[in-house]
């Protein structure tokens, strides 16, 4: 009988305790800085080295580069870059290996959509998804030479 009463006591006490729930849809949920949300892509930083496409475990990044328009500069410029968020597992390996931090994670995670086509984020969408971008990207996987480069 004593155990029952002690149990009732605990629930009664917590009736007046402070509530722990957050009213998410009304109050936006603030994520810590390192949170891995949807990626943000800056086309001008990208050197089309294909590292992110190669390291992605679910192979959901498709990118095509094109020759640099102004003749004197060497290297490549990104043409199309899209991530298929149906399969992307937000594992943060792409930002880890990107030497120039062209692709970084942001803190927003709202990906719900009414049709699957909306889950194909193309370059423009990823470019202007630039709210609360993550600062500390810690891309330890990037080749040491270029790591410091375009920080």
């Amino acid at each position, binding site marked *: 009988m004593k155990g*029952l009463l002690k*149990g*009732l006591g*605990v*629930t*009664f006490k*917590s*009736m*007046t*305790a*402070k*509530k*722990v*729930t957050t009213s998410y849809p009304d109050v936006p949920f603030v994520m810590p800085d390192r949170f891995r949300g949807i990626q943000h892509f800056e086309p001008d930083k990208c050197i089309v080295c294909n590292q992110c496409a190669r390291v992605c475990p679910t192979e959901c990044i498709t990118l095509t580069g094109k020759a640099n328009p102004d003749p004197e500069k060497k290297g490549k410029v990104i043409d199309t870059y899209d991530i298929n968020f149906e399969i992307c597992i937000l594992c943060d390996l792409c930002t880890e290996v990107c030497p120039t931090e062209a692709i970084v994670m942001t803190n927003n995670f709202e990906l719900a959509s009414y049709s699957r086509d909306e889950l194909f984020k193309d370059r423009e969408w990823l470019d202007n998804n630039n709210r609360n971008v993550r600062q500390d990207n810690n891309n330890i996987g990037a080749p040491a030479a270029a790591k410091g480069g375009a920080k």
Partner: protein
Amino acid sequence: MGTWLDETLTWGNALIFFLWGVILLAIVLGFVTYAIYFERKVIGWMQLRIGPNRVGPLGLLQTVADILKLLIKEDTIPRKADRMLFILAPALAYVPAFAVLAVIPYTQDLYFADINVGLLYYVALSGISTIAIVIGGWSSNNKYALLGGMRSAAQMISYEVPLVISVVGVVMMTGSLNLRIIGEQQGNWFWEWNFLPQIIGFVVFIIAAVSELNRTPFDLPEAESELVAGYHVEYSGFRFAFFMLTEYVYVYAIAALTTVLFLGGWHAPAPFLDFVPGIIWFLLKFSCIVFFLFWLRATMPRIRVDQLMGFGWKVLLPLAILNVFITALYLELFIKG
């Protein structure tokens, strides 16, 4: 109410009774709506969360929205179900639940029916709901529902007996089955109410009542985690609403009955508090019991079927019978001797 009952039955009187019936139905439906809301709020608070607060101001319209949803929802009847019984079960469950309210006296002169076998009437009618639940479980042609139905039949029958015997003590003390007289006879001091001399009967009555309502810790028939939803797993839409309605009307009935039988109905706990009208005391005691039921639901785990049976027959029943003997002894030696 009493005066109209004594007159001959004219069309006017019949209309008045009908209107009173409609008013009581409105009150009970109002109670059910806000009992569900209040329960979800209280259990929410006990679980450190807020409970419904989105529909309407402070979530007050939440249950109204639920009932509306149930009304609009498609009312599916499984193809292989036994159609006639499937349709009958919810009605058969709800009618006795509502009919039972006729006999409950709220204050000295606010009551509906003044039957001298009020208590017997109550207990007899509440037995019919058990059949309805078994029919519901059997006719929906679903294994889980069948198991739920069988369990609830066993549980309700085996807890009806201690429920009735535990009340015999009160009846012996007041000498009448009429609930209004039982309510009247309890004195103005709270120790003159029935629950102190009949403390064993009171405890047994509360436990058997919780089990009669199929509420935690005895909610075997609709054990969510085992039988998915027990006997009303196949019901949807308005029929499901009827089963929920039955459950909460029984909460209303049992809480009212406990107030009248054991907690001195409309009597104030002390004579100097008499200026407060009786109906307020009745409602206060009534909501304490309802709160206790919600409180139990938030804390207690579920008891197993065989333990339930063992507890019912081997513990509650002997206690109830013992209570009857003690009351008889007490009456014989002190009152009549």
